[in-house]
């Protein structure tokens, strides 16, 4: 059996406005209990890839408090490892690339006993079995592979993502998605490398550009004829979380069971950090419709079309409609919230109206008192 290690790459990730001001996208709360990076980490775990390095470019604290010792995603806690790679001494953020990170941590990354590396990110949410693609990679005899998805909504979604042109399952060219065509083959920025090739390449990259990240490197290899790059297609559900609006849209889309069952599959659990909160408690006047409610929440008011993380309190007479409330949000008596994303520990006092609109959700920052 091939020896495979995983890289969960938090560098070069999109920003979701204020949601990612104090945390990397990987730890942004999703559907009431997950961190966005849980999908990649669970894909590794469910694919039997037990040695994973998480490349962190900033907000290390947030990653550590989410991942803890990593044992949640590891099958065997002796042979498996979740390592956090962090490069501290980089002047200027744009130089702080994933390749730079791997070079800074080369003592840990080079010399691993492994044959292949799978690189995944935290912003394309999907349930993907990497094993199938690793097998295809091995069979192809090529050193680099990329996984893409054929989409029909490239005009509105996946903007600025890489579009790949392929011939016989090999990448022929890259372009940036400017939203000009509906149909496109969008790179999911999941890459498979022969381990030795990756080590060699990252050491060479600096001679080409110190600003290169792994994504650039693959583009460069494919378009300059350095290596042929396999292009493998993925047919499953993908939620691209590239903007704040994406975050809101896909969170709400997943309220639908028909959509949800495409991402959450019985045989493919998504693991996450556990918080030991009791079941949610509903009062005698609670009204709740079309919503996710997480444990530890106490609902005495009305909650409609919303997603509530753990320990959210909705007091009597309060109305929460079309909202995403992060953990510890408290909505006081008689308050009315609509089209709001409330970050952790927001307190809305009694009888306040706070509303955004369908197209512009209002964001309330961490710990705000209103």
């Amino acid at each position, binding site marked *: 059996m091939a020896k495979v290690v995983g890289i969960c790459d938090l560098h070069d990730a999109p920003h979701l406005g204020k949601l990612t001001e104090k945390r990397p996208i990987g730890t942004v709360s999703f559907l009431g209990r997950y961190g966005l990076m849980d999908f990649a980490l669970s894909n590794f775990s469910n694919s039997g890839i037990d040695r994973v390095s998480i490349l962190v470019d900033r907000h290390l604290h947030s990653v550590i408090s989410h991942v803890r010792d990593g044992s949640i995603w590891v099958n065997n806690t002796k042979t498996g490892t979740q390592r956090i790679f962090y490069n501290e001494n980089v002047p200027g953020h744009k130089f702080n690339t994933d390749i730079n990170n791997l070079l800074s941590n080369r003592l840990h990354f080079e010399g691993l006993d492994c044959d292949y590396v799978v690189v995944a990110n935290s912003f394309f949410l999907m349930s993907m079995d990497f094993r199938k693609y690793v097998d295809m990679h091995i069979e192809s005899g090529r050193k680099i592979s990329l996984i893409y998805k054929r989409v029909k909504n490239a005009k509105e979604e996946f903007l600025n993502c890489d579009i790949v042109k392929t011939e016989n399952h090999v990448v022929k060219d890259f372009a940036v998605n400017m939203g000009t065509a509906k149909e496109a083959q969008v790179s999911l920025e999941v890459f498979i490398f022969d381990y030795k090739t990756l080590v060699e390449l990252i050491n060479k990259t600096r001679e080409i550009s110190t600003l290169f990240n792994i994504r650039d490197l693959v583009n460069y290899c494919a378009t300059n004829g350095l290596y042929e790059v396999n292009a493998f297609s993925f047919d499953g559900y993908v939620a691209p979380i590239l903007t704040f609006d994406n975050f809101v849209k896909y969170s709400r889309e997943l309220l639908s*069971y028909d959509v949800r069952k495409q991402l959450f599959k019985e045989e493919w659990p998504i693991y*996450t950090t556990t918080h030991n909160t009791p079941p949610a408690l509903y009062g005698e006047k609670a009204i709740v*419709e079309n919503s996710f409610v997480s444990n530890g929440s106490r609902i005495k008011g009305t909650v409609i079309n919303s997603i509530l993380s753990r320990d959210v309190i909705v007091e009597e007479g309060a109305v929460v409609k079309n909202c995403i409330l992060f953990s510890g949000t408290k909505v006081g008596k008689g308050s009315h919230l609509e089209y709001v994303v409330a970050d952790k520990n927001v307190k809305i006092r009694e009888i306040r109206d706070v509303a955004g609109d369908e197209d512009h959700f209002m964001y309330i920052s961490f710990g705000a008192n209103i």
Partner: protein
Amino acid sequence: MSHNVVAMILAGGKGTRLGLLTKKMAKPAVSFAAKYRIIDFPLSNCANSGINRIGVLTQYEPTLLDTYIGNGEKWGFNGVHSLLTSIAPRQTDEGANWYKGTADAITQNIEFLDGLSPDYVLILSGDHIYKTTYNEMIDLHAESGADATISVIEVDPKEASRFGIMAVDKTDRITEFQEKPKHPKSNLASMGVYVFTWKVLRKYLIADRDLDTNHDFGGDIIPTMLNDGLKLQAYRFKGYWRDVGTLQSLHEANMDVALDRSDLHFYGDMSTRIYTEDTYSLPHYLGKQASIKSSIANQGAIILGKVNSSVISNEVLIEEDAVVDRCVVMEGSVIKRGAKITNAIVAPNTVIESGVEVNLNSKEIALVGGKVAR
């Protein structure tokens, strides 16, 4: 807390009065309050008390309980100086034995306890619902110089004859033990929670071993200690405590949580939270036509029908137009479209078929399991 304590949890009982709930598992493994198993309570109480060395004494259907206990990680007992292990009766040099009574379960594990050399042994029951730390009780035991300290709770004097009753003097020193007395001398009922000074208990266990007794703490060891003039102290427990040995009491304790009328302080009090297994499921989902009032629901549940005064466990599905009233619905059960059920405990993985009516207009608690069709 600096006392050197090992806890032993008695978890071997069959729980016959819980019918099919304990057909294939021990009573302490029965689910409670949508998310927990009963044994989570004593185990979490130990963790929150800083007692990190625990033996769980199993006997009846131990497999599921053993698997659940695992390496103790769920309650944090996988740390450096921690130990959580389940100990079933076994074949030894002296032959094969069952645990013949609560005291005998400890007697057969004297070597295990000697190996840990505790000053005090805390004896707990694996089937009680309460949230506490044992520190105050152990402090009292140490300070009073007692040989044994027994946790007692005040019960309604009219009910006292259902319990093991402790008569005490002014200093709460126990003067007499009465097992289910016709004429109770006090209203202080034993909770089956004991702290013993290990050296003393050890001696009494060995003496009891070869006697023709029931080898029971309440019936044999405690009365003998009292007869011998040892110092037995009562510790007055304040707060919520329930023995959930019957369907009625199990249902009622669940309702206490659902209706938020217990002083278990599940919500808000972070210092004594109850730890359990995480099922890694999505937060529960409530559908467009759903209604839920005066209830609790755990992650993984999907509620599309109507729920009132109920406990909805993980991975439960309540379909459209189903009505669930005053029920404890255990994990994985499905209440299909249009089914109606009241006043019931629904065993794990039960399927109630469409349109079926269960226990409507009945005041008795029904226990349902398997496939329930018309």
